[in-house]
């Protein structure tokens, strides 16, 4: 009976049925969307190898623009700002990932131990707040604290006899501030993800541990953390896949695009946006393509590693 069924399925798969037509029809709008907004730009990356000039519509412009080979990339990597850009993009991301994971895991473990579940819920709600704010709104919040003549921080400094700091001109404070903001924004999110994992654990492990006389700290160290290891590793590696993509709003909106902060806020996305607006397309397209390729490689690499750690969690 079952075998016959399998045979039928096999045969049915070979012929195009009415069902297939209807399903294709249903998927058609989304397919068109993918073509226009995902695949067309993918082919558009060849402008990185061209001296792109607007001439009619996009396709015509791409075809009529002159090939220049790797010249755009040569310019890109000859520029001394490129090193700053790469250092900032990758450097900040590494810190965001390591510190963000650590803080989220620690807080998730802590919040799971609170006596009052109601309070735990309230804390989570409050800490989730920044996740729902856009960087533009956060830039306004930061301005309220750091404005030179009216900001809270300078008010406090001058009222206690210190001297006001021109925050948007002084780059030494910004790496710390940017890291703080990024962690702050993602805190609620990370905590919820890890907390969901913790609450999913089988309580019998802890029962057994209690009977054996394990302290809370020992339970955390020998049960909770080892059981979380896989999720942590996967989240960690998946975020490594975005290491060449910077959070544009954080690096552009929050520092108000201040030139004095160039050294510490210049990332790939900031560069691409600025050159796009300045119509210097050559270098922008080269670095956008570089970013896409590196992103692709890191995603695939990360996936290969996930596959070895835990084949079920691999994306591909």
């Amino acid at each position, binding site marked *: 009976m079952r075998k016959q069924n399998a045979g039928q399925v096999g045969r049915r798969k070979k012929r195009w049925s009415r069902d297939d037509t209807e399903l294709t029809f249903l998927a058609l709008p989304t397919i068109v969307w993918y073509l226009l907004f995902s695949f067309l730009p993918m082919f558009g990356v060849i402008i990185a190898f061209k001296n792109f000039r607007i001439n009619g519509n996009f396709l015509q412009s791409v075809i009529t623009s002159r090939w220049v080979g790797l010249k755009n990339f040569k310019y890109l990597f000859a520029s001394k700002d490129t090193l700053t850009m790469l250092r900032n993009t990758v450097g900040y991301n590494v810190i965001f990932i390591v510190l963000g994971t650590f803080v989220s895991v620690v807080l998730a473990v802590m919040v799971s131990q609170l006596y009052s579940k109601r309070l735990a819920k309230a804390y989570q709600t409050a800490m989730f707040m920044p996740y729902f704010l856009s960087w533009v709104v956060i830039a306004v919040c930061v301005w309220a604290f750091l404005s030179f003549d009216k900001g809270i921080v300078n*008010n406090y400094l001058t009222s206690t006899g210190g001297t006001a700091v021109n925050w948007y001109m002084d780059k030494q404070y910004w790496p710390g501030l940017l890291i703080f903001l990024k962690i702050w924004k993602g805190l609620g999110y990370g905590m919820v993800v890890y907390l969901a994992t913790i609450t999913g654990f089988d309580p019998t492990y802890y029962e057994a541990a209690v009977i054996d006389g394990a302290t809370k700290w020992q339970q955390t160290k020998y049960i909770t953390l080892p059981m979380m290891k896989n999720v942590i590793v996967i989240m960690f590696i998946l975020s490594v896949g975005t290491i060449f993509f910077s959070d544009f709003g954080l690096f552009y909106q929050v520092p108000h695009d201040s030139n004095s902060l160039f050294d510490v806020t210049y990332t790939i996305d900031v560069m691409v946006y600025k050159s796009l607006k300045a119509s210097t397309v050559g270098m922008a397209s080269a670095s956008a393509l570089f970013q896409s390729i590196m992103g692709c490689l890191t995603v695939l690499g990360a996936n290969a590693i996930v596959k070895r750690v835990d084949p079920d969690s691999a994306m591909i």
Partner: protein
Amino acid sequence: MKKSAYQTGLEKFNRIHPATNFVFNLVFILLSLVCVVPILLVLSISLTSEQTINSVGYQFIPQSVSFESYIFLWKQYVVLFRAFGVSIFVTVVGTVLGVLLTTSMGYVLSRPQYRLKKFLTWVVFIPMVFNGGMVSSYFVNTNFLGLKNNIWALVLPLMVSSFNVIVCKTFFQSTIPDSIVESAKIDGATQLKIFFRIVLPISLPVLATIGLFLCFTYWNDWFQSMLYIDDSKLYSLQALLMQIMNNVDYLSRNAATMGISAAQVASGLPKEGMRMAIAVIIVLPIACAYPFFQKYFISGLTIGSVKG
């Protein structure tokens, strides 16, 4: 019954030390404050009169409450309501269309016998790994699709994400039994009918989750405006705030074009309070809504982390 009683017994016994609990609570109260206070500060500045701000700077607790920023914004209702309208339009239309496109693709991919399943899975998957990047998307959208200074530029590019499609697909695979679809087919229903009449109504949780994510994405989006919108008539609230942040005189210039002399407006312009007031207008709907929807967010996040 017995088991749960036993578990609560264990929970009581296996607790952290009361002092540790106290310290943990302190830590979380502190962190919660750090997360909420900046917004409260913005709120309180928006309620301070321009004069007070100019003399003593920003303060957590306003010396005297004044609604002058809001009144000024109210007088600028043409600008404000237009921006509000754009934000609402983009959010509502984007969310509805996005949910439809995402779930229909998810449903199609979840049908085991569909001929093009493999091909479409690749169509959805490839963009997760490789994308054309900002520059070429920009030229495709502006020069090919004519989206420069077009309100659809704020809607279309953000509609579908492969991640959401895969979440949907996984959901349909595990919750829509094949037998329902098969029996509906025997009754003569087309796939279109099955999708709208049967699949969508029983998939409310995933619709809610994806709808909410899209809703917040659209409401909070400013990047699309920054790239594609120069025409101030098409500014969303976020774009308006961005503009005022970069250029405090924006509204006074705008008022000038409406026949009021620029100097007259600029002198009475509550510059400082105004940007804070717009930030409050943006945040208020989110802050009011999200505690109620948190449940769906969390379920969405967990679907994501457990993987589609």
